[in-house]
């Protein structure tokens, strides 16, 4: 017994399909059944509808009619499905659970049953089918069978699945992003969504901020000045507004936010809110500051190195000059002692020369090993005291046991002048050793930009009417020349405190 029985009726049009039933009914005043035989139309229905599958089942649920649309969907022909129980179309799990039987029972009880689930095609592929099974009953209510209309929704389901998965992934991404605060605002700037990044950066939990104006994340002074509102207006005006600035966390600490607010619109350009993306730029700002500071330090160091290089070059040049000048002094001393001499030079003259060489070496050595001497050029003033002390210790070695006292202030001179000063002291102390008795005093005092060098002994002193210009004392001639030329000073001969010779040299040459 089939669920559908062809209708019966006699009529003048029953042997053909009416092209315009309404017009014919109007012309002929005949009843629809008089002019229309459904049994003629049904095969066409089964043959031509491709988008839906039409399946007719007998009261046991076996297939009795199978449309070409059903063949398209499931891959089975009408012949293959004839009198087959359709649970073979279900996936194994549903088949085992008797889903088809349940569907039939629901349809029989309620008149219809909707069922949307995965099925399996003949070729094994899974297809997603939306189906409605309707119970077919005659006028007496007796069940004649069932009809099932199915539709293949595999593509739509795949698209929906893809969209849903994409949305889920996006939502998950938004949720899980911790580096960025990703927040949705409503058109008024109230917080509508809050991700983990926002929670990490701002320290508020979602329930603490949802529905509140996002301006709460700004510093109080920025809230007062209307900065949050301004940023929203700018985003609305420009589409996106970027703003780097301080924000305050829940615990009150301040951080630097790199914020980007974008206005969002619906399809009809209606403003529906904002997205707000914030990155904690504190570290970046600190790095930037550190980088700028490092660059600044680098520039400073480069400039210092450059300056040191320049000073070093100058110092090398000056040292070279000083060494050559010292050689010139030695050469001048040798020439001074030897030019014009016929054969021999007295040993004492060689000793004098030796002392001068010692003096020059001591001056050079001291200047080369003091920071002043190394790093400052020859125009810089340095204290003469350490050099004179060193020289006097040297002179003590050849003083023949005489007492050599000294009182030396920190008087500052240029290196060339210190060299001259040491040469003078060397000459005068040598003279004092020669002519003095027991005590020799060297004194260097300076005040008010002037200095006074005194060397005196306790010997017989200068003879009455002594004229340095006429004297044949080589040492004094040398001293006089050096005082006048190198120190631009004045030389004075007098009787000393101990009754001996006193030589006083006054000069305005002092660096301090």
């Amino acid at each position: 017994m089939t669920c559908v029985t062809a209708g019966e009726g006699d009529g003048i049009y029953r042997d053909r399909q009416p092209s315009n039933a309404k017009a014919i009914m109007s012309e002929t005043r005949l009843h629809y059944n008089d002019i229309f035989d459904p049994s003629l139309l049904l095969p066409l229905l089964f043959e031509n509808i491709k988008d839906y599958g039409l399946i007719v089942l007998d009261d046991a649920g076996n297939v009795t009619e199978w449309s070409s649309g059903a063949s398209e969907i499931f891959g089975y022909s009408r012949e293959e499905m004839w009198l087959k129980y359709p649970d073979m179309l279900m996936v194994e799990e549903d088949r085992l659970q008797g889903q088809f039987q349940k569907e039939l029972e629901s349809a029989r009880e309620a008149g219809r049953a909707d069922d949307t689930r995965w099925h399996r095609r003949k070729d094994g592929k899974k297809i997603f089918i939306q189906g409605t099974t309707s119970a077919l009953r005659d006028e007496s209510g007796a069940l004649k069978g069932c009809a099932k209309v199915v539709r293949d929704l595999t593509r739509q389901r795949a698209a929906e699945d893809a969209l849903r998965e994409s949305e889920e992934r996006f939502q998950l991404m938004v949720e899980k992003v911790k580096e960025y605060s990703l927040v949705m605002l409503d058109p008024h700037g109230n917080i509508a969504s809050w991700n983990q990044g926002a929670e990490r950066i701002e320290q508020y939990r979602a329930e603490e901020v949802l529905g509140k104006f996002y301006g709460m994340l700004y510093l109080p002074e920025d809230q007062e000045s209307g900065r949050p509102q301004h940023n929203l207006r700018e985003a609305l005006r420009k589409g996106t507004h970027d703003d780097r600035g301080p924000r305050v966390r829940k615990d009150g600490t301040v951080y630097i936010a790199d914020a980007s607010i974008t206005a969002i619109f619906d399809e009809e350009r209606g403003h529906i809110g904002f997205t707000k993306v914030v990155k904690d730029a504190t570290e970046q700002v600190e790095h930037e500051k550190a980088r700028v500071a490092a660059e600044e330090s680098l520039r400073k160091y480069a400039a210092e190195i450059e300056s040191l290089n320049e000073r070093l070059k100058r110092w090398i040049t000056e040292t070279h000059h000083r060494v050559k000048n010292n050689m010139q002094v030695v050469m001048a001393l040798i020439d001074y002692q030897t030019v014009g001499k016929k054969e021999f030079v007295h040993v004492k003259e060689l000793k004098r020369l030796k002392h001068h060489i010692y003096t020059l070496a001591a001056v050079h050595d001291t200047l080369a090993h003091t920071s002043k001497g190394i790093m400052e050029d020859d125009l810089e003033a340095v204290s003469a005291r350490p050099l004179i002390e060193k020289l006097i210790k040297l002179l003590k070695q050849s003083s023949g046991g005489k007492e050599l006292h000294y009182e030396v202030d920190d008087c500052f001179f240029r290196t060339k002048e210190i060299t001259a000063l040491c040469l003078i002291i060397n000459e005068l102390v040598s003279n004092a050793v020669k002519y003095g008795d027991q005590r020799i005093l060297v004194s260097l005092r300076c005040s008010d930009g002037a200095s006074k060098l005194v060397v005196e002994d306790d010997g017989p002193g200068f003879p009455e009417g002594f004229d340095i210009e006429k004297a044949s004392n080589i040492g004094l001639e040398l001293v006089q020349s050096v005082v006048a030329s190198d120190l631009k000073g004045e030389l004075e001969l007098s009787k000393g405190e101990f009754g001996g010779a006193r030589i006083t040299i006054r000069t305005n040459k002092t660096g301090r």
Partner: protein
Amino acid sequence: MGGSFPLQDVKVVIAEDEGLTQLQLKKIIKILGGEILAIVSGGSDAVEAVTTQKPDLVLMDVQMDNHIDGIEASKQILEQMSVCIVLMTAYDQFEEKAREIGVAGYLIKPVCAETLQVELVRILSQFREQHGGERERLHDAHLPAAGYRFTA
């Protein structure tokens, strides 16, 4: 005039701010027979001394304690008169500048009596040849080859 006094009758101004070198030069010039008109220790004094006393030879230090150094002093002198100027310095970087301003000779310190004798005679002879002077006034048998030569 004999061979032992090669600078006899040559009038000399010494501009040198180191006392010992002053003494050295003074002694050498005297031994060679030269006449020292003035010894100064600054550039301005050198210009004054040379332009007023008109020597035959000027021994000029380059770096002196004055706002005018030996190069500038030489330049000012040579703008006013022709004279044989010999620059003496521990530096060699002023040689080109010295050549440009027309200095006759350039000696690099340290200098000794023997070098000075040879070089001063050579430079002065050369200068006089170039300026129409009398070579025979100089009396040194060991003149080096002619030509402008800066040497230590």
